[in-house]
């Protein structure tokens, strides 16, 4: 045995990947239900996706506050009783608010599902948004914001989005203390009425799914005044900043700077999107990427550096993000541009491209482990209004995008003039 010689491998690009199809049904009111039955554990995940993100709010913070306070009181239950109802059965009911959508999710042992759906029904039908609960929410949100504003990476994340999209756009907006102060229950109730009571909903279920799923969901959600969502992508004009370079001092004692380099990029419907995922991986998408190899593993400027495409529906952006020692921030930025230049000027060598392809395919294979991961792939396709073949086309793009095409794409997109540059320290 010679330990210097690697054992033979099968190239991951030769694997056949398949995404398990979902089961589909519609509730009596037209609400679509997508489900995946898989996995050995007797657990289930239910996600209620409402079109009630910050896209729809009239002033800042209303969508997030409404979403959060859905758990804080109904005509039948206090906040404490709602929490206890979920927690008694060891289940988790979480809320999250995004730009277009807002989600209420439930994770529980399947055997307890029937006891928990009535509580969700109550939240969707009878929420009352008590003044006292909103006051606590406002106070605690402000406290959290105070702590976050001291973190350079938090401030950098907010600012870079505002440069890309403009502060008036749902993707670029952020809340200040005064926005939190001006939240009031009347606005929340109106938002609840428009976007939850009379809103549009899609349901995603995964795990050990009961055979009579549609009947159970119909019982609790099928009679609500809800409709099927229109998945077509909404468009709102963006207003990017004119200035491109920003250096912001946030904390005089900072020992690191939060670096964000970002450029607008089309959404997933653009023909370049799938191929760009390959280029992004070469550039900064994983631990073996060029940025990581150079800036962490060669120079030791940072604990980690990544590039990624933002997960937005309408309009995306390509970002490079890192926290680097204060004295090496400018050197780090210089290296980032150097890596862009290399990708524009020299084709990626066959060996490196093969590594990245195999790594990406292996990664997808790993991501298909378990029902929650499978439904999340489908949810992405459905909510972004993509063709069902999107998954397979993405796999094809990984297998076939050539070094020449990647160099062309680098020349089209990895151009420093297109990028915003920000350091917060």
């Amino acid at each position, binding site marked *: 045995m010679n*330990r210097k010689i*690697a*054992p*033979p*491998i*099968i*190239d*991951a690009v030769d*694997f056949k990947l398949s995404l398990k199809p979902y089961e589909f049904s519609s509730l009596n009111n037209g609400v679509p239900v997508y489900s995946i039955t898989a996995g050995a*554990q*007797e*657990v289930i995940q239910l996600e209620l996706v409402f079109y009630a993100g910050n896209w729809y709010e009239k002033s800042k913070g209303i969508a997030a506050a409404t979403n959060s306070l859905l*758990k804080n009181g109904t005509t039948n239950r206090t*906040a*404490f009783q709602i*929490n*206890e109802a979920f*927690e*008694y*059965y*060891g289940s988790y009911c979480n809320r999250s608010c995004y730009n277009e959508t807002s989600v209420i999710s439930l994770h*529980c*042992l399947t055997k307890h599902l029937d006891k928990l759906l009535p509580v969700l029904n109550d939240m969707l039908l009878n929420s009352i948004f008590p003044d006292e609960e909103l006051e*606590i929410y406002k106070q*605690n949100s402000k*406290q*959290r914001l*105070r*702590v976050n*504003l*001291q*973190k*350079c990476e938090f401030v950098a994340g907010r600012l870079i989005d505002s440069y890309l999209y403009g502060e008036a756009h749902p993707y670029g907006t952020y809340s200040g203390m005064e926005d939190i102060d001006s939240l009031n229950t009347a606005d929340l109730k109106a938002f609840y009425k428009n976007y939850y009571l009379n809103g549009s909903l899609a349901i995603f279920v995964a795990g050990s799914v009961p055979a009579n799923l549609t009947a159970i969901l119909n019982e609790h959600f099928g009679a609500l005044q809800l409709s099927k969502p229109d998945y077509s992508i909404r468009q709102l004009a963006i207003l990017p900043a004119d200035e491109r370079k920003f250096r912001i001092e946030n*904390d005089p004692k900072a*020992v*690191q700077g939060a670096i964000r380099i970002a450029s607008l990029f089309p959404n997933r419907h653009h023909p370049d999107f799938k191929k760009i995922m390959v280029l992004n991986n070469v550039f900064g998408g*994983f*631990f*073996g990427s060029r940025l990581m190899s150079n800036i*962490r*593993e*060669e*120079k*030791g*400027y*940072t*604990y980690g550096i990544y590039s990624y495409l933002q997960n937005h529906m309408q309009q995306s952006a390509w970002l490079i993000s890192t*926290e680097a*020692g204060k004295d090496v921030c400018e050197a780090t930025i210089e290296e980032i541009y150097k890596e862009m230049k290399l990708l524009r000027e020299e084709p990626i060598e066959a060996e490196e491209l093969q*590594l990245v392809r*195999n*790594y990406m395919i*292996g*990664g997808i*294979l*790993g991501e*298909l*482990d*378990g029902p*929650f991961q499978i439904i999340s792939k489908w949810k992405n396709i459905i909510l972004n209004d993509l063709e069902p073949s999107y998954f397979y086309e993405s796999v094809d793009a990984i297998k076939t995008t050539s070094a020449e095409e990647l160099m062309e794409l680098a020349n089209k997109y990895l151009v420093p003039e297109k990028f915003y540059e920000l350091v917060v320290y």
Partner: protein
Amino acid sequence: MIQFEKFTMENGLRVLTHVDKSTPMVVVNVLYDVGARDENPEKTGFAHLFEHLMFGGSVNIPVYDEPLQVAGGENNAYTTNDLTNYYCQLPADNIETAFWLESDRMLSLAFSKKSLEVQRKVVCEEFKEHYINKPYGDVWHKLRELVYTKHPYKWMTIGASLKHIEDATLEDVKAFFHKHYNPSNAILVVAGNVEQEQVKALCEKWFGPIPAGEKYNRNLPVEPKQDSPRFMEVSSDVPLDAIYKCWHIYPRTDDRYYVADLISDILSGGGSSRLFQSLVKEKKLFSNIECYHLGSTDAGIMVIEGKLVKGTDIKEADKAIQAELVRLQKEGISETELEKVKNKTEAAMAFEDMTVMNRASSLAMYELLGDADLINKELNKYQAVTLDNILEQSRIIFDENNCSTLYYLSNNKVN
């Protein structure tokens, strides 16, 4: 029920196999029985720095990551005060690549000077990112020193100071490797789409020839029983006052550990938990408050930490916490509350076991504790906890002489 098989190789390497044919992947998890608690007090942060160096090339293979990525795999590692765990996941067809890579770095590292130089810097940036450049980032540095007087849990995994990391030499690296990184101090778990026989053959081929090395015998100073309350106050550029209270609890394998674990769930961990309901919602003294324990192998600590609502007197807030603890000590909890935290534990375990990767690392961790089958037996240990156990332990744990308190005050220079 999680099925597994175990065998021990002649060189002392313990091997566990968990077969799951529903996944196309395989996980290879190597746990080394060494953590920050095994470090020289003058050279802390070493176990973790060493973890970084394990990716800097081994005796026959110049780089670790690339061959694994070519095989469609990915990997990571973590270090705690108790252990160091390395794991990779790759398509099952390419399993041998993982055996090749993991066995070579168990055999010997390349001990590259360049790798040490770079990783020292990387770890210093990690230190800054997580423990210096963040509000409240240094709190655990202070708390550990307050709570532990003798036991090496008194320093953080990242190290007691940046200087210890900056001063690490290649000689230190070699000595550490020879002391801790050998088959008799390691546990290998292979999980996923494999056959038992295949694992045995691969183990014989790749790990069999590695010399056993010397078994490291741990002999750590025991933390003496705390006999009076401890208190520390610091003031810093943070926006809000915060309070941290710690109490010594039990080793991970002690039956009373399970009681302590459930007590932390009674007090916090959800919107219906006692501290949240009483102190955030009703009394409005805190904007958030949590109770948890560190889950360490040797006797660990229970922690309550919270951030105060601006304008609240910290002594009043502290008293309110104590009042909740006294209520627990006097009245105990209801049958329903006990059922609730047991249900929560059952569900949490089911969710945790969903991925092959989690099952692999849990098996390794339980084997380190002495019995891999704890993965199947632990739920019963939680189910066996009684109302009386909770009452008794809440009186013992929350004794004021067992308590260390840190007031982390805002000097109001920010916001």
